[in-house]
């Protein structure tokens, strides 16, 4: 997996590694036993199988141990799951998180920024197509929607994935721990252009983000209530219909 | 000693099957699948309605409750006549079997007929399944769910009437006796099931 770029990424990865260790150990145990038995008990002249119908004790042992293991994995997994997905609960996105709106549509992502007043649906909002910009070290909380079909908002480096469902507004949050440019991919089959519904997420240093935001407003990015596809800054938007892959 | 008895003598007693003969067990099993089918449709209805109650109208605003209540009563009566038909053949009463089967068919056909009439009236009123043409109180989902649930029920009743007609035809040919009445029993089971589904549908669609 790519190196984690979010605060909860490491936590999610650690669950993955716990499961990898447990399942890896079981894999080695079981497959080795299988191979050893096949070799050791293969038919040879005069060999007779041992007639037995089973062992109650064995059944209990190999029921209880797996049961305990899986319960452990459930216990280890649940807290971080709720923390990531219930954006409004304790320990999740703080109240002063940067609020963004992302609306998916065939085949692009339209991001509404709240502007300097940090409130969505005010006059200083602006919209970017296929470009997500956030500051490092600050929680970002997204209201995720869709205009047409189900898409899925996937930021691999951030361990973020959330289906965008038309008719629903679903909260997604994360906090970036590294600057740089990262891919945003669609992870739910959404039609003909699903394979090219890519966008990019840029994580800025805090003051760099403010600078970027002012530039956007000055250069006249479309206001939040304008149609995003009329964007004047088309040259900044990478994915168009019919564009060949690089 | 008979062949089967000899086998039973030497082999240990099996845990015998449910002592329910094949077609009867088959019908019960089939009806279980029908329960699941209607549960899926009714479940969808419940989910959609409780998410958006504003898309529905109060009972009686759009649907003709009194007429349908009468229709429900008729269907229940048809279950009674079905029971009487089965009781008749259990006692070898051929005349009773024919009489009560015919009564069941008439009542079942009348139910379908009245429902068709109700459908035409509702469609004239603008209560349709098609969202873009919906013109009645409430919202299009009301229409969509109504026609899907009652429509499939109506199809089941119609198929039941056809099967009852076949059973009646066989009865007139003297096919059933007090020892051999499986065909009557299983159509009876199906008919009672169809009636039960209607009682549930009537309650949740027309009364709630």
């Amino acid at each position: 997996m790519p190196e984690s770029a979010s605060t909860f990424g490491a936590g999610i990865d650690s669950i993955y590694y716990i499961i990898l260790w447990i399942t890896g150990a079981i894999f080695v145990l079981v497959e080795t036993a299988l191979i050893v038995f096949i070799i050791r008990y293969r038919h040879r002249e005069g060999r007779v199988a041992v007639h037995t119908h089973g062992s109650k004790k064995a059944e209990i042992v190999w029921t209880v141990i797996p049961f305990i293991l899986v319960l452990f994995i459930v216990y280890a997994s649940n807290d971080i799951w709720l923390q990531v997905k219930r954006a409004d609960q304790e320990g999740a996105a703080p109240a002063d998180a940067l609020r963004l709106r992302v609306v998916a549509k065939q085949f692009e992502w339209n991001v509404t920024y709240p502007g300097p007043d940090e409130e969505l649906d005010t006059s200083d909002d602006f919209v970017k197509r296929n470009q997500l910009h956030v500051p490092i070290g600050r929680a970002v909380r997204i209201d995720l929607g869709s205009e047409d079909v189900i898409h899925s908002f996937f930021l691999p480096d951030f361990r973020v994935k959330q289906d965008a469902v038309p008719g629903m507004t679903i909260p997604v949050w994360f906090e970036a721990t590294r600057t740089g440019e990262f891919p945003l991919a669609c992870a739910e089959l959404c039609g003909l252009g699903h394979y090219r519904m890519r966008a990019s997420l840029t994580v800025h240093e805090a003051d760099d983000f403010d600078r970027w935001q002012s530039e956007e407003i000055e250069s006249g990015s479309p206001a939040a209530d304008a149609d995003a596809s009329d964007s004047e800054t088309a040259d900044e938007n990478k994915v168009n219909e019919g564009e060949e892959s690089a | 000693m008979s062949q089967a008895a000899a086998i039973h003598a030497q082999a240990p007693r099996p845990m015998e099957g449910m002592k329910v003969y094949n077609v009867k067990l088959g019908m019960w099993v089939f009806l279980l699948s029908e329960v699941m089918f209607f549960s899926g449709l009714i479940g969808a209805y419940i989910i959609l309605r409780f998410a958006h109650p504003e898309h529905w109208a109060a009972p009686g605003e759009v649907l003709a409750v009194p007429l349908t209540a009468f229709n429900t009563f008729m269907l229940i009566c048809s279950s009674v006549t079905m029971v009487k038909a089965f009781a008749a053949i259990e006692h070898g009463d051929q005349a009773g079997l024919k009489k009560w089967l015919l009564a069941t068919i008439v009542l079942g056909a009348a139910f379908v007929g009245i429902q068709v009439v109700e459908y035409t009236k509702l469609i004239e009123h603008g209560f349709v399944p098609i969202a873009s043409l919906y013109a009645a109180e409430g919202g299009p989902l009301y229409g969509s769910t109504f026609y899907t649930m009652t429509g499939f029920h109506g199809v089941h009743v119609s198929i039941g009437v056809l099967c009852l007609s076949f059973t009646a035809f066989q009865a007139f040919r003297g096919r059933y006796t007090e020892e051999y009445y499986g065909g009557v029993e299983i159509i009876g089971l199906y008919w009672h099931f169809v009636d039960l589904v209607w009682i549930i549908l009537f309650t949740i669609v027309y009364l709630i």
Partner: protein
Amino acid sequence: MTTPQLLAPNVSAQHWADPSHPDDRPFIRKYVFSTDHKTIGNQFMFMSLFFLMIGGALAMMIRWQLGWPGLPMPGGGVLPETMAPGGILLPEFYNSLVTMHGTFMIFFAIMPLLVGMFGNWLIPLHVGASDMAFPRLNMMSFWTAVPAGFIMLASFAVEGGAAGAGWTAYPPLSAVPEYSGVSTGQQLWCVSLVILGFSSLMGAVNYITTIVNMRAPGMTWLRLPLPVWALFITAILILLAMPILAGALIMLLFDQTIGTTFFLPETGGQPLMWQHLFWYFGHPEVYILILPAMGIASEVIANGSRKPVFGYPAMVGAIIAIAFLGWIVWGHHMFQSGMNPLLGSSFMLSTMIIAVPSAIKVFNWLGTIWRGDIHLHTPMLNALAFVAMFVIGGLSGVFMASTPVDIYIHDTYFIVAHIHYVLFGGSLFAIFAGLYFWFPKFYGRMLNPTLGKIHFALTFVFYNLVFFPMHNLGLGGMMRRIYDPNQYGFLEPLQPMNTFISVFALALGASQLVFFFNILWSLWRGEKAPENPWSSNSLEWDLPSPPPHGNFEAMPAVYRGPYEYSYPGRGEDFWPQSEPPNGRRARVETSGAPVAEGVPQ
């Protein structure tokens, strides 16, 4: 002709085999519209293997595109411009390919092989009946599946092409042609599956009734061969799950055609409701796809080890537990769907718990071969591979059962790896095992063992080279159903792995030709099969290969369970279920009077 219907298991209603009376059924009644379960099983075999080839061909095309994106496919010129101009696959055709590959494999290959073929072959013979409870319903079940398959195939030819919303058909994409670019094809997909549902349902009613009511004397529930238990529980799952799918498909079809909006949000419909309905069916469906395979594996492994199944009651209990728990895990397909996260927690718990009965079965298979006398005949090789691969598939499932890990791997190739380890590594290897094991009984000819072992070795090696790396693709972030991953910079480094997989996928596909050739060759030129080539115990091995119409000459009697291999003190290492305890077989004359040796008169 009146058939007495008694309130007891239908002893006298069965039409046993009569060697003195020749089988004079006309050709059409014998081979086309047959009510004989063995013939119907054979018909399901041919139909399903045909669709397995179709599904495989679709997969080859998918892998071509992923291995060599944008390159013209050899032979692709035969495809129309709407699918692959110049042999280069179009994205819309690719979406149809992934959809139809899954659809054909699940509904028209694996299900009819496991349930239609093995169910028909095995159930009446294993319980000791002359045929199914409802032979004509059985015939209708097959002949309903055929038009369903034809419709699905024909949907490639309509305008707009075949369905392209995934085998899961999530609306609104699947409900609105403007979104998917597919209109009639998507509707035909729904219609075909509704029809197939009727076929499955008829089969389920038949199997349940036959198993409950028509077991021969002595065939208690706990003496049933495990394939019968598995098929019984599977039939119950089909009975209860298919109608839910039917309801959902009908609502989707209405949304597509008559303008309802069950799943469209503009007028109050709910896209998520489709997912709940579909997966409420869909999860029991995947257990439908694996349980019969587990039953077959148990049968073959016990036979190949010359030992009883270890923990038979636990094996039965595990089948029942899996089926039961399978109803409360469906939400694990919807963890990232926007469903309430607390539901995610509860589904995670139930999903993790369902791993336990599967684990129990794996340990019991190990226990069966432990201290056995292992004969690595072709069925056994495939059955052991089933265990090995199912373990991998099951363990990979633990990752996605954990909701936080699923955030990353959902809708990636990690899931694709899991699916194929359980469905191919699991179900298909078990199907191979069962085919090599029972083909002799139903066709009277052995499948060539050398070709069988070659097929096994090639398949096993290539299969792992294809599907194991998909775990890595998924961990690298490669999403599912992506026509051209190179559109994403972060996926470009994975292209060599995709090409690697595709090379071996083509090899895997080619290796199956060995299997298909073996089947066709052996039907006419295979070595004639004896009654009991594997020295097995269940009732079918008492009969000629193939068994006559009516199976047994009289109702058989059963004296013990099906796995009494290597019983101490006996000369042979097997002990047929029908052999009386005093060692001499009861022969009951068809004239009526019993001449059972050793029976007190």
